[in-house]
């Protein structure tokens, strides 16, 4: 049965590719290029086929596509194009995982700050297994990992801590995917860095993990939460992540190795003291 379904899926994909005029074999030829606001990239986009999907930073004007954000034009199979740009203001997008801070509490909802220009709402019942009687109570200043559940241009975005798909854990167990982040440190970074960290091919987080064990939560809104055994380690990891922002993946391991080495130069008694805590 399983074999059959994979075959069907393969056929389906092949059919799709056929509709789009076949996937050319020269995808490797695409190199991310720097583009500027107002640049006409119609030629670039139609190299591998006439039908394309445009992501952020690209805008269609009748029969041509122009760039609306200066940055680097990226391409993903089969026909997706977008511009990665340096930005700090988050624009909420449905199903993004974000980190937000409780700024006000009300009976029905929490008001959250997630660096998006307006505050976001988190209903007090939007937790797996929460009821009117049994629900988490957050104070002002609580750090919460949540997903964007509703976005509308005339309304404040709404967050939720309920898992949409995948294994669900009751909020009471403390093992649910979303919810309060305790301990550690949170810092803000550019949206570009957050997106890069969220990409599983990115080398930064795995390289750090090979030196120091730690926990991390990356919010698409440019907030990163990190927890490790000792404060010094947390500070080291935060600085390593920030320092890697403008480095290509190939240079990341060398930089992180250097940082870890410098941090280890601290007096030994200092390190032992930290371990006890």
């Amino acid at each position, binding site marked *: 049965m399983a074999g059959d379904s994979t075959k069907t899926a393969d056929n389906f994909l092949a059919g799709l590719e056929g509709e789009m005029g076949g996937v050319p074999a020269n995808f490797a030829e695409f190199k991310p290029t720097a583009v500027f606001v107002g640049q006409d990239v119609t030629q670039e986009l139609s190299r591998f086929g006439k039908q394309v999907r445009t992501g952020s930073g690209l805008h269609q004007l009748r029969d041509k596509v122009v760039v609306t954000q200066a940055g680097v034009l990226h391409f993903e199979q089969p026909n997706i194009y977008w511009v990665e740009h340096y930005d700090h203001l988050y624009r909420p997008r449905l199903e993004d995982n974000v980190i937000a*801070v409780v*700024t006000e509490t009300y009976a029905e909802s929490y008001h959250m*700050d997630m*660096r998006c220009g307006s505050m976001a709402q988190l209903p007090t019942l939007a937790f797996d297994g929460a009821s009117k009687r049994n629900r988490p109570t957050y*104070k002002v*200043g*609580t*750090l919460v990992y949540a997903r964007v559940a509703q976005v509308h241009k005339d309304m404040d975005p709404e967050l939720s801590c309920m898992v949409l798909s995948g294994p669900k854990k009751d909020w009471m167990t403390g093992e649910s995917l979303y919810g309060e*982040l*305790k*301990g*550690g*440190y*949170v*810092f*803000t970074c550019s949206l570009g860095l957050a997106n890069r960290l969220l990409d599983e091919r990115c080398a930064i987080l795995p390289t750090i993990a090979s030196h120091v064990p730690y926990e991390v939560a990356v919010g698409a809104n440019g907030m990163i*939460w990190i927890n490790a055994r000792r*404060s*010094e380690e*947390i*500070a080291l990891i*935060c*600085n390593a992540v920030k320092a890697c922002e403008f480095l290509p993946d190939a240079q990341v391991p060398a930089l992180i190795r250097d940082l870890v080495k410098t941090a280890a130069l601290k007096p030994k008694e200092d390190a032992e003291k930290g371990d006890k*805590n």
Partner: protein
Amino acid sequence: MMGAQSDVEKAFIRRLGRFRGDGREANMGRDVELKVHRNRATGQAQCEARLGDTCALAVVSASPVAPFADRPNEGILRVNVVLSAMGREDWDASQRRNTGLEAAQVSTLLENALLESRTIDLEGLCIVAGRKVWCIQVDVSIINDAGNIADCGCLAAFGALCHYRRPDVSVVGNTVKIFDLEDREPVPLSVHHTPLAISFALFRSEDIDGDSEVTKDQEKFFLLDPTDREELAQDGKLTVIVNAHREICGVHKFGSPALEPAQLARLVSLAAERSAFLCKVISESTVSS
């Protein structure tokens, strides 16, 4: 730069204590950068000061005006602080009240440093006693707030004042002639000394988690030149206005904790060292250009 600070972040900054997230020691300031520029057409001098990511721009201009009636032979020095939404997200027109308070704090500090410390020879700005004097206007705008805007604004203001050259004047009988900048070399202001604001974020650390070895000295700690995140977590703030000759021109303190005389003396002497260093930066960058 941005609003809400979570408990997690606040607790971490306190837990790190004297080890700071950016690798600085408690008594280390951020990198300083001064850029000065003089406009040949308008005669204005400007100075862009950077403390790490914090950035302030000061513009100095002068115009001949009638003096105050009670001080007929003294020039006028005016300080104006502008906080726009460019500096920080919540310095917005919609939150005017909040912005006004912070702007007032910064301008109080700057007035303390510039006016009350008698840094500029105001009598030297007199053209004709009782009739015409120079009015020196210092406009300080905070371009980016990454913490410690008072120090940065003060640095920018002095950088611009030291770099400024006013047009030369000649008085023949009753006529005052102000020379064009091309016709006659403009003259620098006589700046007696440069008292700079040096700020510390103060912390009470009694809620440090379960370490019995905390001695009395460690109960409080301070951080020189705090970032915006450290400022959000701080319990209080101490700003010392001090010049390169270790002369104190003002002390401002907000919030807790109470400082003992010895601690205050230590902070003041640290501030004096930092001030001497910054004064050197000012004189180097204004001379070289």
